[in-house]
């Protein structure tokens, strides 16, 4: 096993053991079709959710509180440490992939857009990602 593979294995193990998130984090692929995209009238939007495995470590940095008639929401930015086994560079570069947070029952809690991603590299191989993301839709 190469050094990078060994480190990725350790990263996966650590993320699974620590489980530093109380959400179920998924990547969501958005497929828009039909309508008139120029003016933002899309005919249909199909979403495909894939649960990240291992789950990443998620750190919330609240920036604003908003309220609805029934609850308060924390508008946040997120720092996320993820394994390259759960998110590839093509996933992170894909402008139609976002991250979504769900509870254990599968209820959608939040949608976040990926702002930036930085690789941790060992021996020429990505062994982890540091991702910053921003809250866009709050449940």
């Amino acid at each position: 096993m190469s050094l990078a593979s060994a480190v990725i294995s350790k990263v996966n193990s650590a993320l699974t053991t620590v489980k530093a998130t109380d959400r179920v984090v998924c990547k969501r692929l958005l497929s828009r079709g039909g309508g008139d995209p120029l003016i933002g009238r899309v005919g249909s939007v199909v979403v495909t959710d894939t649960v990240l495995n291992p789950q990443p470590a998620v750190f919330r940095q609240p920036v604003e509180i908003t309220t609805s008639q029934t609850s308060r929401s924390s508008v946040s930015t997120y720092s996320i440490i993820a394994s390259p086994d759960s998110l590839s560079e093509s996933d992170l570069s894909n402008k139609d992939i976002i991250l979504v947070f769900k509870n254990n029952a599968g209820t959608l809690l939040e949608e976040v857009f990926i702002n930036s991603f930085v690789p941790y590299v060992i021996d020429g191989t990505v062994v982890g990602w540091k991702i910053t993301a921003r809250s866009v839709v709050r449940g």
Partner: protein
Amino acid sequence: VDSRVQSARDTFLHFLADNLTSVTIHPRRRDANDPSADELAENAVNVEFTGVSFGPDISEQQAAIDVIYTDERTAVDTVAQLWNLFQSAYYTPLLNYTTLTPVATGTNLMWDKTAVRFRRVYSGDYTHYTCLLPLKFRAV
């Protein structure tokens, strides 16, 4: 049915995209189903709608037009295409795009073609020209 201000935005975007077919028009808007919609696009004409004001006769919607290219010569040529387009007329029919087939509203979307100015915005990353164009229309 859309408000007239929504029709003004849709009409202006189509006026640009339908007349400048070799140019990528990127409308910047917040869209939960389109992560890159509110980001600046390179090698494109970015259009963002900013302030709006309403009057009993004429209302105004500001359009911020940002021309961003990695190649300066292409940016300048695109600015010239926009300027020529805005000089070719001073209005376009205001259409309602609630359905896929636009419906005429019987009024026009207008701009002051003598007031089209493109200002260079310094950037070390790309060539950037910006123009703030007030669009006039009847809101009622």
